């Protein structure tokens, strides 16, 4: 049971453009305009815009709920209450967003006038762009490309560059060190991350999320044969989204707020938001690659998209748990961990995947 987003929106656009607005324009004797609005190209573009908006809003809502889950669970981990506004504190993030929205927008005197406003746009845009490749169910997706796995990981890998830009443009020692750390961290986790994804691709023989999920539906969840790869991917993706214990670019104890020290107001709010958007993408990557995507029991009653989001929330518990449990590690330790521990594990995992594939067990 799933919602076919493209057909639904396409049908609605067609009805609106042809049967409502087209009829009105025909009644006004504007036949040319009516024909142009009803042509397939215009309908297609409008459908793309509306579907993109829906995907963006759904992704933002899920990200906001992830912020709520993070704050509430961290509160419980620390014997606190957590968010307060609204039922179960659900509206706290909206209240906070309203607060940062009305704050003054300050550009530091020493900042680079061109790149300082540009870097948040790049970070937020890149983080939101990853919603495009994440499918929620068989019908609820923005794009269904054969290379969506590669595209997602590529966009994920570009974000530290924007972070470095923002850190440099702020012209502050804390932001610069934070940006440099983000760039340095990239070379630590990127290789094990990609190698663990490569094992999934080897087993499933596809770089399309649809095919990977379909493969897991036919055989088994890939976390069972590739448990090592799952652990490597989990650690690497936590480093990728810059959460504790890998939040070196935003080390609150050493660098004030890391590379985002000089950003205030709604820019800070949106940067915060984009971090959780990337967390959402990371958690959904884990769900799609290792936990069977949107398939689950009671598929007749519970829609596939709901299953997907529930699984994302469950995987995000691991992120929050890691935040609560571990201290932040040093730069040399993250290199030590990623190169000496995770890289051999990822290689072993890749061999296991190749072995399974050659034996023909999957």
């Amino acid at each position, binding site marked *: 049971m799933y919602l076919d987003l493209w057909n639904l929106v396409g049908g609605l656009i067609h009805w609106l453009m042809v049967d409502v607005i087209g009829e009105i324009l025909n009644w006004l004797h504007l036949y040319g305009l009516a024909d142009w609005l009803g042509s397939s190209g215009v309908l297609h573009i409008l459908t793309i815009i509306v579907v993109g908006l829906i995907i963006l809003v759904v992704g933002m809502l899920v990200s906001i709920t992830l912020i709520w889950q993070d704050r509430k*669970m961290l509160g*419980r*981990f620390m*014997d606190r209450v957590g968010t307060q506004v609204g039922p179960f504190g659900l509206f706290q993030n909206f209240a906070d967003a309203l607060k940062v929205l009305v704050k003054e927008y300050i550009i530091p005197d020493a900042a680079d006038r061109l790149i300082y406003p540009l870097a948040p746009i790049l970070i937020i845009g890149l983080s939101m762009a990853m919603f495009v490749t994440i499918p929620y169910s068989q019908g609820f997706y923005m794009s269904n490309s054969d290379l969506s796995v590669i595209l997602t990981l590529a966009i994920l890998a570009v974000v530290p560059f924007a972070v470095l830009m923002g850190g440099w443009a702020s012209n502050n020692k804390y932001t610069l060190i934070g940006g440099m750390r983000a760039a340095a961290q990239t070379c630590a986790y990127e290789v094990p991350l990609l190698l663990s994804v490569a094992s999934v691709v080897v087993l499933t023989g596809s770089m399309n999320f649809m095919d990977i999920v379909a493969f897991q539906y036919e055989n088994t969840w890939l976390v069972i044969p590739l448990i090592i790869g799952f652990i490597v991917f989990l650690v690497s993706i936590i480093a990728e989204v810059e959460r504790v214990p890998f939040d070196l670019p935003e080390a609150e104890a050493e660098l004030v707020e890391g590379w985002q020290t000089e950003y205030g107001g709604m820019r800070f709010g949106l940067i915060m938001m984009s971090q959780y958007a990337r967390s959402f993408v990371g958690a959904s990557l884990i769900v799609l690659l290792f936990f069977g995507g949107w398939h689950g029991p009671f598929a007749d009653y519970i829609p596939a998209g709901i299953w997907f989001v529930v699984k994302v929330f469950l995987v995000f518990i691991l992120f929050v*748990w890691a935040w*609560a449990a571990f201290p932040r590690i040093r730069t040399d330790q993250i290199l030590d961990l990623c190169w000496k521990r995770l890289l051999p594990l990822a290689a072993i995992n890749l061999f296991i995947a190749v072995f399974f594939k050659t034996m023909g067990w999957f």
Partner: protein
Amino acid sequence: MTDKQISRKEKQLGLTGFIFKPMYITMKQFIKAVVNRPQTILYPWEKMATPDAFRGRPGLIFDKCIGCGICMRICPTRCIDLVEVDDLKKAEGEEPKKVKRPRVNLGRCLMCGYCAEYCPTDAMIVTPDYELATFSREEAIYDPYMLQHDWKPGYEVHIKEVLPSEVNKVFEPRLRIEHKDIPVLDDEKCISCTRCAKDCPVDAVTMVEVGVNERGRPIRKPVFDAEKCISCDTCVEVCPKDALTMKEAL
């Protein structure tokens, strides 16, 4: 010389100490906080459950009070004084009587509960009220009417006494009534003015004729009823010639 060389590997926490133990501890804490509730109390909306023996501000049961002033004298911060107010009980068509009742400056009160402990009629009680913030210092002075509070068993405080020989035996702890201070008269100084008899809140003082003076008028001296006396010091304070002293019981 024989110091054991600690290798770098032994100094490291390892997988167990660095990963599994903190995860176990945090998850235990999480489950504890979810199953029970977090430690935080959201104060204006939630309040801590006060224990039974909680001592908040002093309260007054107006009708029980006899205006003896023990609370005023025992108060360590001198935040209690006696004021004359209208009695709450009055007959139809009559002016209410003036009675003495304690007034407490809660800005200075330290909630020790001595006033309730020493009150002979249990009119002073300790209440569980602790939200006493005011906008000015004058508002913190509670007059006898504001000081009133509903009574519940357990609000009054008693000095209970158990002898060492009675410990672990079936004896009710008893109030300290056997040995109490009693005023003693110095006959030389007494001028028979009867102020002590008039001011005694429990009518424990009776004026008794003990003889006649050289003009043939009766000489009256106060006699103190030890059963009724509550050792309140009122007679000692009002005596114009300082003829009375408290004789300590022990």
